[in-house]
């Protein structure tokens, strides 16, 4: 399999000996990959919150998408297919940490585990970052501040406590409630254009 490709040094000038039939598709794939990698990665990151798992799940998603492309994709566009795989992969990931038995994947998705919604929404980068900003704007001052310190500024609990003039114990309560409120607001905020 890799013997043919082994002859090429770099993508680019070198001719794809023997695989010319696939060349166009190879380039298409590369472009497709580059366009969607960030999208998927940021989406996954916003679900797991750390790089290592974000990379791992992103890999899983792309590999699953490629493996299933001929058997499971049906008539979906490549991008839709990719997003669908992303959604189910994340859903599986969360399901393992979710006590309430989830009778169906749909239920889980309804509960908010939806993927990168559609191209329209992501136009002009309404991704996770934008959603965070919108939620922050809608939160009461002290909730906004604690989340800003802990997440956007990446401050430790101690520094956050200093900055806000509260005890660390206070901050722990505050950030919990802030996230809880943020979750309650998310849907409202996200649906407001």
């Amino acid at each position: 399999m890799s013997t043919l490709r082994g002859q090429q040094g770099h993508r680019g000038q070198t001719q794809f000996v023997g695989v010319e039939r696939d060349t166009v598709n190879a380039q298409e794939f590369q472009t497709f990959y580059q366009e969607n990698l960030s999208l998927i990665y940021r989406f996954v990151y916003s679900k797991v919150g750390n790089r290592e798992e974000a990379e791992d799940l992103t890999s899983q998603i792309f590999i699953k998408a490629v493996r299933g492309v001929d058997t499971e994709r049906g008539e979906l566009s490549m991008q839709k297919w990719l997003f669908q795989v992303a959604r189910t992969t994340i859903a599986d990931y969360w399901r393992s940490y979710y006590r309430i038995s989830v009778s169906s994947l749909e239920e889980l998705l309804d509960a908010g585990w939806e993927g990168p919604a559609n191209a329209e929404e992501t136009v002009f980068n309404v991704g996770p970052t934008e959603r965070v900003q919108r939620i922050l704007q809608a939160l009461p001052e002290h909730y906004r501040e604690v989340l800003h310190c802990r997440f956007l500024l990446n401050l430790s609990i101690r520094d956050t406590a200093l900055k806000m003039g509260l005890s660390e114990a206070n901050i722990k309560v505050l950030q919990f409630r802030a996230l809880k409120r943020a979750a309650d607001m998310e849907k409202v905020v996200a649906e407001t254009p």
Partner: protein
Amino acid sequence: MSGEDQERFEDYLELEQYLEELQAGHIAHPPAEMTPAQARVYRMAALFRSASPEASEPRPEFAQALQAKLEQELQQPVTAVQSSGKQGKQGKQKQPSRVSRRRALFAGGAAVAASLAIGAGIDRVIEQVGSNNASTATYTPTDTPLIAADVPTIWHPVTTLAKLGNDAVPFSANAIVGYVIRDNSDPTKETIIAMSAACTHMGCIVNWQNSDRTFYCPCHGSTFTASGGIDTNTGNWGVHYLRPLPRLNTKVENGTIYVEVPAPSATSSSSGAGGQTVWLRKTNQK
């Protein structure tokens, strides 16, 4: 939802533990037994993490390694061939053993498309197809427009001459996101140009900054001049293959500026596999 009186002291500690692990760059998982209310809190924590300074983009090493892995996968032959029309009506190859996954990927009805990033990399594709005797290459290697010839187009009104100042004006129409701007490069005549806003690196949408008349890509810092060219001042962090932003046709009629974009129904069913018209297929049924 549960009231605050139902929160336990441990909830706060567990959350803090989780956050500290994440801040340290470690893998962290929410507690195994969560109520739905807790699950929402942790889901929100992960979301907010993605807005932290170090989240943002995949590492280049990772991007390359994964791409290599996928390339290998793509060399695998298709495992099963749909006999029915399920794979699309556009004449998928009928020789399963000789069809690599790669073929299945974009063959026939498969649409890459309509990600917001239309235009990214198209030039690259074209350039490299060049001298192959690929029967699939139906387009010419040079000067291929963003919108293929057989895609029906419409003229989308963006703004008016009267309103167009020196700023770039963004528009979004039928899977194309772009900017209209006055081209000041030739002061002797007034020219209005339009270009795709999808960065030719990885397709993020570039932002216009009027103070230095430059398009900035929020993802990896690519910069483009007001006419969509490569901004040589910044060096663009050594991306050699960066291309100018693809142009779109414009016209002015009765003071209104129009941009030529694919018609809403442009499904380009006539094109064969590999044609770039797939780029313009819409993914959203409205």
